[in-house]
């Protein structure tokens, strides 16, 4: 959980407390209706954070309900801290994606660091040991000084936290797009491994059980996550207000991980919940609501790091590295002993009740014990969580939008490449040096990717492979989004992200298990933005249903806007897959001279939304490529089967930069060239650089070729031979009507082949990112 992201303030300033807190008059009425009376100030503060978009999902919940949540092996789905899917041998995998966008825009280092801390807590709260972090980062123009400052801060923040807690950062995305200039996106995915019998719920069962808060003390950091609370009109609080971004302490987190997993392993807790957005209020209300119980919290019992904190500050503080455990009274001593061994402060702050209410009492401040505790607040737990307000927002498509062509539609007559006089080899070199496609080594070298001694494949690959100790299995994980397509068509943007992510997992030979997501959008109170969100959720649902993948959890980040406008609709997808035998894994790099190179799938028309289109400046009337979900499903079935039968030497997904970039990556990473022929129709740019989905470059031992062909036929997948692996140059001869002859007829005389030394390609690829960011390599 992370910082609450506040609604944009509208209209005249108003001194009414609920409006100062960001609640509308309508919401205030709904609160009063649920209480049967008007709330007091503390109750209103608790509602204001719990009914924030971030905690309540009040705009998105009606949409999220449409997503397919169940599936084979799902043991925990949406509503829990993280999705959990069974992987056999009594083991299960927990995974989730989450945003920390606004804090990272304000304070990149701490914003990103606490983003990592928050998502890790979601994982170990379930009883899982975190085994991997993936970070999906989106920034504006890399040449911009502000972007460079943000990139440096965020990368250091992710690394600073992940490296210290000892969880390897093994993958992710780094994307530059102008729409993120003032509103960067920091989405972090974490993956954990657990024994299924250790699965722990974030619930507070058993009236009479104790609520134990352990970890860091509670301070004024991250109050409400919103400056609205720093208003002088609020109560008597007159002490200095701190910046609303929390400060992370990875050392404390590391101790929390070990202590929490020990508590779970020793069977000492009935429920466990981390404290994130809305702090104690959220942890108490959610655990009680999930168990159908209530909870009474004694304010005076909460350890603080500052004096003179007002009750509301204690209840909604977002101080990091804190956990709430629900403990049977007879096990309290053992729980406190484990916390003490790890040097963690622990205190009983409340008790589970059967009245369904979250009740805040105070037994009086320091040195003034009162005979009778004062009741400061009493709210039905449901009213704060599952029965929080829902908003039916208005959705309206933008007046100007383009639709994707249907799969299989004819390729456009021509797409401009020969006419521009472009040499396809030069285009390829320039694409490889593009900051969106170039090597991420500058960034990933700042992340510890091998701690844990499980990393088989890490960064610089589309998916990471993490072995499961004590078994032959491996987990494969990836995260993807497609902002450029999303900007043109949010439905297609979501579809494209899901199928690309699933393909990235499947090319390794793994079977995708489930999907987590993070929906990053603008202001849902604007009808066009809400339409974009609605379309993206529709795309996410359609794609997951077609591929048979459950959506096991996710996160929504709205109001990603700046005075320059909303960000590109960004449906960030995270997928974890299972490789039954790690020795079956298939990598992207070419491996042996003489192997055959082939393309699975067909070229799909459309260049809009591609990096090529960005380089070309503009493309003729065009649309992003459509997605053939049946084809994608066939690929997801074909790839693990081909891998398990040992038919593939290498496999690489075709995405950013198109077929030519995919081939260049296979060659550079394998340090082996290739001699290929690609038949181009009338649209060589779409063939070489188009980013149409549904395609995979494979290399095959010639003795396996006929078996592979038969398997492709059985899955109804086109398989086209391109040539052979060998040498130290990448040669792609273009044939067909789009090649030289036709171009020369038109008088442009462009090169009809790519013929580049691997060293040239590698130099462009390796130097692209540091150069774009003005950093030394």
């Amino acid at each position, binding site marked *: 959980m992370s910082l609450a992201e506040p609604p944009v303030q509208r209209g005249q300033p108003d001194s009414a407390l609920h409006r100062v807190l960001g609640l509308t008059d309508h919401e205030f009425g709904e609160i009063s209706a649920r209480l049967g009376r008007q709330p007091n100030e503390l109750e209103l503060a608790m509602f204001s954070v719990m009914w924030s978009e971030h905690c309540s999902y009040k705009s998105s919940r009606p949409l999220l309900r449409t997503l397919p949540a169940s599936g084979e092996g799902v043991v925990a789905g949406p509503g829990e801290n993280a999705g959990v899917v069974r992987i056999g041998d009594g083991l299960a995998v927990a995974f989730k994606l989450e945003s920390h966008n606004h804090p990272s825009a304000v304070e990149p280092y701490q914003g990103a660091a606490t983003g990592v801390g928050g998502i890790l807590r979601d994982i170990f709260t379930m009883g899982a040991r975190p085994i991997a972090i993936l970070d999906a980062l989106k920034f504006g123009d890399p040449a911009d000084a502000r972007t460079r400052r943000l990139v440096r801060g965020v990368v250091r923040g992710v690394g600073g936290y992940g490296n210290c807690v000892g969880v390897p950062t093994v993958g992710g995305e780094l994307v530059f797009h102008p729409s993120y200039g003032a509103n960067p996106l920091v989405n972090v995915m974490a993956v954990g491994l657990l024994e299924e019998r250790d699965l722990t719920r974030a619930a507070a069962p058993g009236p009479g059980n104790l609520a134990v808060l352990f970890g860091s003390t509670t301070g004024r950091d991250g109050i409400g996550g919103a400056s609205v609370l720093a208003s002088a009109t609020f109560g008597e609080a007159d002490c200095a207000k701190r910046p609303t971004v929390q400060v992370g302490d990875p*050392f404390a987190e590391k101790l929390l991980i070990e202590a929490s997993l020990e508590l779970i392993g020793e069977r000492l807790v009935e429920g466990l919940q981390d404290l994130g957005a809305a702090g104690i209020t959220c942890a108490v209300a959610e655990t009680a609501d999930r168990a159908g119980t209530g909870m009474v919290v004694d304010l005076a019992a909460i350890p603080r790091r500052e004096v003179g904190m007002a009750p509301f500050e204690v209840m909604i503080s977002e101080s990091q590295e804190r956990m709430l455990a629900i403990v049977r009274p007879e096990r309290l001593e053992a729980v406190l002993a484990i916390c003490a061994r790890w040097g963690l402060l622990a205190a009983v702050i409340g008790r589970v009740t059967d009245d369904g209410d979250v009740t805040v009492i105070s037994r009086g401040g320091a040195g003034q014990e009162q005979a009778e505790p004062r009741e400061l607040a009493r709210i039905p737990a449901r009213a704060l969580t599952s029965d929080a307000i829902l908003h039916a927002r208005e959705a309206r498509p933008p007046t100007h939008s383009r639709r994707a062509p249907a799969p299989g539609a004819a390729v456009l007559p021509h797409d401009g490449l020969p006419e521009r006089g472009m040499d396809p080899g030069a285009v390829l070199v320039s694409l490889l040096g593009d900051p969106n496609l170039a090597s991420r080594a500058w960034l990933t*070298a*700042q992340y*510890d990717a091998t*701690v844990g001694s499980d990393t*088989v494949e890490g960064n610089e690959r589309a998916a990471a492979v993490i*072995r499961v*100790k004590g078994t032959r299995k491996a987990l494969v994980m990836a995260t993807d989004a497609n902002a450029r397509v999303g900007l043109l068509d949010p439905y297609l943007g979501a579809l494209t992200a899901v199928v690309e992510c699933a393909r990235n997992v499947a090319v390794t030979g793994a079977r995708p298990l489930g999907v987590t997501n993070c929906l990053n959008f603008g202001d849902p109170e604007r009808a066009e933005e809400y339409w974009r969100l609605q379309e993206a959720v529709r795309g996410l649902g359609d794609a997951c249903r077609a591929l048979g993948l459950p959506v096991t959890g996710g996160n929504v980040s709205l109001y990603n806007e700046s005075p320059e406008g909303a960000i590109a609709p960004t449906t960030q997808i995270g997928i974890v897959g299972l490789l039954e035998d790690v020795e079956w894994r298939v990598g992207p790099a070419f491996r042996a001279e003489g192997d055959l190179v082939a393309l699975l799938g067909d070229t799909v028309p459309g260049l809009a939304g591609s990096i090529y289109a960005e380089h070309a400046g503009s493309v003729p009337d065009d649309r992003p490529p459509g997605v053939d979900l049946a084809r994608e499903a066939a690929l997801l079935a074909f790839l693990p089967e081909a891998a398990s039968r040992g038919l593939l030497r290498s496999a690489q997904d075709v995405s950013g930069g198109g077929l030519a970039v995919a081939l260049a990556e296979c060659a550079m990473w394998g340090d082996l060239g290739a001699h290929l022929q690609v038949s181009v129709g009338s649209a060589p740019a779409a063939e070489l650089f188009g980013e149409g989905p549904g395609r995979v470059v494979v290399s095959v031992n010639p003795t396996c070729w006929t078996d592979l062909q038969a398997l492709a036929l059985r899955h109804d997948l086109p398989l086209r031979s391109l040539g052979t692996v060998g040498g130290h140059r990448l040669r792609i001869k273009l044939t067909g009507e789009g090649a030289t002859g036709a171009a020369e007829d038109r008088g442009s005389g462009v090169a009809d082949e790519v013929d580049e030394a691997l060293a040239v390609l590698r130099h462009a690829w390796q130097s692209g990112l540091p150069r774009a960011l003005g950093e030394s390599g």
Partner: protein
Amino acid sequence: MVFPGSNCDRDALQAARLAGMDAQLLWHEDPDLRGSDLVILPGGFAYGDYLRAGALARFSPVMGAVHAHAERGGLVLGICNGFQVLTEAGLVPGALLRNASSRFEHRWVRLSVERRDTPFTQAVPAGVTLRLPIAHGEGCYFLPGPQLDELEARGGVLFRYAGPEGNPNGSARDVAGVINERGNVCGLMPHPERASEALLGSEDGMLLFRSLLESAAAVAAR
């Protein structure tokens, strides 16, 4: 050895067991080394690396026992943060400064083995370099020139960064690992415990663990 904040303790335990050692985790508050022949100080961020990497860990209750163990001739291996702790504790010479790039660096490097007559390296075949990962922000080895000359003269430099991967952190004279004068305490920045299986990219690290197993067995036999 588990300090609060150690994060390679489980990796070291696994590698030691894979090499055939009878290994267990020790706790920083318990000065009993349980008769260990070899103590490994693992990587991580002991005590959060507050103040300075390794600076607080050397005051840990168990460090007195580690000192005594070393004085008795017992074997001590410090990896990464463990190396930092050893330098802070004065068990090996030198200091580890911030990387020359001033960034955290994670990458695979190649090490030349300067001596093969030590308990840490005796199983390394002649002419073999080791491929191991590094992962640190403060691994730039420093010792004033004359002292470094002296260290080199007595054969105190055990590992150097070598090959095309080069020196990743600006360490003086490419020093990646050192050994004390008596030859029983060694610290190095790269992670041999992570290079324990071919599946993970290299099993070169096991050469060090096997060396240690053989030496400990030889000591025990005497």
